[in-house]
């Protein structure tokens, strides 16, 4: 083929990821006692789609693994195999294996097959689990005692069919006929113009009636199927191999009720609740769009509103009625068979048989719930209708452009401000409108990048389930605020810290059921994940009702590690200790936690995102970790300040107050010069960080009493920043400096002012640390004092 198929790999990988995530979600929410057949179907379809895609691209390891999984899922969804908890565990494991294989394909860009071992081991497990005896008590769609022969009949039929008609070029494939049988009975077959000898027809139908009785167990499903819409699908100019493949595919999406070939057009009638788009999507794996036509066929729609209507669950009474009816149907079919073959064409035969089957079978009273309702309520798992896939670069580009617009608008506003508002009132009105429009546009565009927290929270049910069972604990996961939105980049980065916190809660926080009961708590612990907006921030909490932080152990460990701690520290201060690098009170290092590299990394990650984390705990009651993150990194409320001739921007949320100090408030540390100055504010001594020193600005005011001192706060501490003057307050668009340049100390990013010039945004935490280093280093020996000007001025310089 001249088509380069590798360009579609990325799409396949993304969609397969989504399908696997969906599969996991459904597996976790399955009720083992009464599994919802729609969910089972959806799980099966997910596996099937992945197999289809994998086969198309020639990913043989993935295809083979998925094929085995699909087989067992198929048995489960048709009711042949009763669902058990250990099966769900194996299915979840299968999902992991598929994930792993997909990742391997992705990393090698589809060129290298992953190791077969995993897949083969999994196949063994799947086979083992599907062979195990079924629990008789399970009342599900598998309530019907389906003997294994159900499969064998199909195979038997296929074999019979193949021997009878296999050589005929015009014979429809066996599985098509088999599926027709699932709907009703075939009263006869003709191939071409040859009339099959009556005997053969009788044989065919004899075995069909045999399969019909066992297919009677499928009756609920198929009769419900008769309540579906019928899609007329035309395959134009499609070769036989592809056509066969496609018809088989379609059979998995619904029931093929008929097919007809005229010239180079193969028409297939499919009873399905899938939309034409779904069908098209499936077929387009194999053929082109112009080879396909899909439309609803009203004429063959749900002709018989008499719904046998079941969701797949068949109660005993209905089943008995069914058995009686299938027997009756058999007789009817046999009667309909005359020694002379009936040259009815197949679709018509199906029509009549189906209607007669329906009429017969609907006699018993059945629950009236229309088949349409449950089907409609569970549309195809892919939420295609309301969303579009867009690359992140496009969205970022859009955000940049809107940022530009805001800057340009600010420039215009600044220029316009010089005009007389009364004379140019129309201009000012226009400017006000423009500002509002620009702001609205900006908010709307920023919200494109916002994703709901559910994206993060949805990973945890599986993690909690696995971890809890591994640790032998019972944990219930509760989530609030899944719809709360957060910028995509932050969402990605919050996953790791949250995972760590959840693992900690499970490992250290929540106790085993025995311990809990002894403490008077419920055996099952509760882990709460919540997210909500608060001001311009988002607050994410991880909360457990476990044992809480052990104050004594923490203090003891801290003392052992040589930290400066006292017993007089408050509980909160003790809690902060666990954020220290290398800290862990775990007795043993497990693979889950205990190495002591966790909490400080969590804290640092969150700080890098511009947020902070705090922790509260009460003994025996539980621990709550609270993470605060800014909603967006792209816009900043800033204060512009002047140092010398240069303008800088300071993030407003770090500014506490500003003042012009008097000489009495400035102190110098013993032996110090300029670097060791502190200012006393309300009894507290804060180090002074002189910006002109940090940034080497000339012509700046160096005397604090002639300049302005801004009290800043960062990372829970405060310091004082020396600047020349305050200019104003504005919202600025944050521009990354490192895109084209590199990281500069003390500068977090840049922005563009109203006059088009660039201003640098100050990195407050970095300056805070610098100020403190200055203070502590001052006492050290790594400074040289030069006596300049005969000793009048003592200069302190850093080394290295």
């Amino acid at each position, binding site marked *: 083929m001249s088509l380069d198929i590798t360009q579609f790999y990325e799409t396949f990988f993304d969609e397969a990821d989504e399908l696997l995530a969906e599969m996991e979600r459904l597996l976790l929410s399955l009720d083992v006692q009464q599994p919802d057949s729609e969910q089972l179907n959806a799980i099966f379809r997910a596996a099937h789609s992945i197999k289809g895609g994998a086969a198309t691209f020639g990913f043989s390891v993935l295809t083979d693994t998925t094929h085995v999984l699909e087989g067992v899922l198929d048995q489960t969804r048709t009711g042949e195999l009763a669902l058990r908890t250990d099966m769900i565990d194996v299915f979840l494991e299968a999902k992991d294996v598929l994930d792993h294989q997909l990742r391997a394909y992705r990393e090698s860009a589809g060129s290298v097959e992953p190791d077969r071992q995993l897949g083969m081991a999994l196949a063994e497990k799947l086979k083992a689990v599907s062979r195990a005896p079924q629990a008789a008590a399970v009342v599900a769609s598998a309530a019907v005692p389906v003997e294994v022969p159900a499969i064998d009949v199909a195979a038997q039929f296929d074999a019979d069919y193949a021997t009878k008609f296999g050589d005929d070029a015009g014979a429809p494939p066996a599985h098509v006929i088999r599926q027709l049988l699932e709907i009703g009975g075939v009263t006869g077959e003709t191939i071409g113009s040859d009339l099959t000898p009556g005997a053969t027809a009788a044989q065919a139908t004899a075995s069909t009636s045999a399969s019909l009785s066992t297919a009677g167990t499928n009756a609920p499903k198929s009769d419900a199927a008769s309540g579906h819409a019928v899609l007329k699908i035309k395959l134009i100019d499609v070769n036989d191999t592809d056509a066969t493949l496609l018809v088989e595919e379609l059979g998995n999406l619904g029931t093929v009720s008929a097919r007809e070939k005229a010239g180079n057009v193969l028409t297939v009638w499919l009873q399905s609740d899938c939309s034409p788009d779904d069908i098209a999507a499936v077929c387009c794996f194999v053929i082109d769009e112009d080879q396909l036509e899909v439309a609803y066929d009203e004429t063959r729609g749900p002709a018989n509103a008499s719904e046998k209507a079941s969701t797949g669950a068949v109660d005993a009474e209905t089943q008995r009625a069914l058995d009686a009816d299938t027997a009756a149907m058999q007789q009817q079919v046999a009667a309909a068979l005359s020694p002379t073959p009936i040259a009815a064409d197949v679709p018509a035969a199906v029509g009549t048989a189906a209607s007669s089957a329906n009429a017969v079978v609907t006699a018993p009273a059945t629950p009236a719930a229309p088949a349409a309702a449950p089907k409609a309520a569970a549309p195809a798992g892919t939420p295609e209708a309301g969303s579009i896939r867009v690359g992140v670069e496009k969205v970022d580009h859009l955000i940049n452009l809107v940022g530009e617009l805001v800057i340009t608008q600010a420039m215009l506003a600044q220029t316009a401000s010089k005009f007389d508002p009364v004379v140019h009132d129309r201009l000012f009105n226009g400017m006000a409108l423009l500002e509002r429009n620009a702001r609205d546009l900006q908010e709307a565009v920023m919200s494109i990048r916002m994703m709901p927290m559910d994206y993060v929270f949805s990973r945890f049910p599986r993690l909690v389930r696995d971890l809890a069972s591994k640790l032998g604990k019972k944990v219930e996961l509760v989530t609030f605020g899944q719809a709360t939105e957060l910028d995509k980049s932050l969402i990605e980065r919050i996953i790791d810290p949250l995972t760590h916190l959840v693992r900690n809660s499970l490992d250290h926080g929540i106790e085993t059921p025995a311990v809990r009961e002894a403490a008077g708590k419920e055996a099952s612990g509760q882990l709460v994940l919540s997210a909500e907006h608060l001001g311009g921030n988002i607050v994410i909490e991880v909360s457990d009702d476990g044992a809480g932080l052990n104050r004594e152990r923490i203090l003891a460990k801290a003392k052992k590690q040589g930290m400066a701690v006292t017993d007089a520290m408050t509980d909160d201060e003790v809690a902060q200790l666990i954020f220290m690098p290398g800290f862990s009170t775990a007795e043993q290092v497990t693979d889950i936690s205990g190495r002591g590299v966790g909490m400080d990394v969590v804290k640092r990650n969150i700080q890098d995102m511009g947020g902070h984390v705090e922790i509260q705990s009460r003994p025996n009651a539980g621990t709550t970790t609270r993470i605060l993150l800014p909603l967006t990194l792209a816009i900043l409320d800033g204060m512009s300040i002047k140092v010398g001739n240069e303008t800088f921007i300071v993030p407003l949320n770090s500014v506490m107050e500003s003042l012009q100090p008097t000489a009495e408030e400035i102190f110098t540390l013993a032996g110090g010069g300029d670097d060791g100055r502190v200012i006393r504010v309300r009894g507290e001594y804060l180090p002074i960080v002189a910006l002109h020193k940090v*940034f080497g600005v000339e012509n700046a005011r160096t005397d604090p009493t002639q300049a302005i001192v801004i009290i800043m706060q960062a990372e829970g501490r405060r310091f004082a920043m020396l600047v020349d003057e305050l200019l104003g307050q504005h919202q600025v668009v944050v521009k990354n400096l490192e895109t084209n340049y590199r990281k500069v100390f003390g500068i977090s990013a840049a922005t563009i002012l109203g006059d088009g010039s660039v201003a640098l945004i100050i990195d407050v935490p970095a300056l805070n640390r610098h100020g403190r280093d200055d203070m502590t280093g001052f006492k050290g020996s790594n400074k040289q004092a030069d006596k300049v000007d005969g000793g009048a001025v003592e200069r302190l310089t850093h080394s290295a």
Partner: protein
Amino acid sequence: MTELIKTARGGASLALIGNAKDDGVANEFLAFTLGGEEYGIDILKVQEIRGYEAVTRIANTPDFIKGVINLRGVIVPIVDMRIKFAMGTVEYDHQTVVIILNVAQRVVGMVVDGVSDVLTLTHAQIKPAPEFGSVLNTEYLTGLGTVDDRLLILMDIERLMTSDEMALMERAAA
């Protein structure tokens, strides 16, 4: 300079006129002057040419890194090659030219004395770079181009801009 040209061309008289594309491969170069010499860089690396406007200084950087400018919303660092290669006193006026480059997926600007034109050079017109360097380290030279009377020192501008000595890029920490 004239001596250099004579030596480089081995005393031969004027070579080909630039338009001969007989060997089928033509490279386009932007010619600019710096410190009295003419240099040529691959035109594909040049994004645009601007005048010099107010630059925002960045602290604690080498003196040839003037700072950053706002280029239609993108923050672009500006380096002054005249300072880098110590070519005497530099002035910034309305005739100062900044070439905005797009190298290694970054946008960088460099101040030069002047920009002349875009030349197409065939392989035949490009001679290998001499071993003894001019101001530039020879590893950044890709050859010498000859057009009419002119001698163009052909430079691998991407290599130069991404090098450590330009201190423009963050080196990955070990």
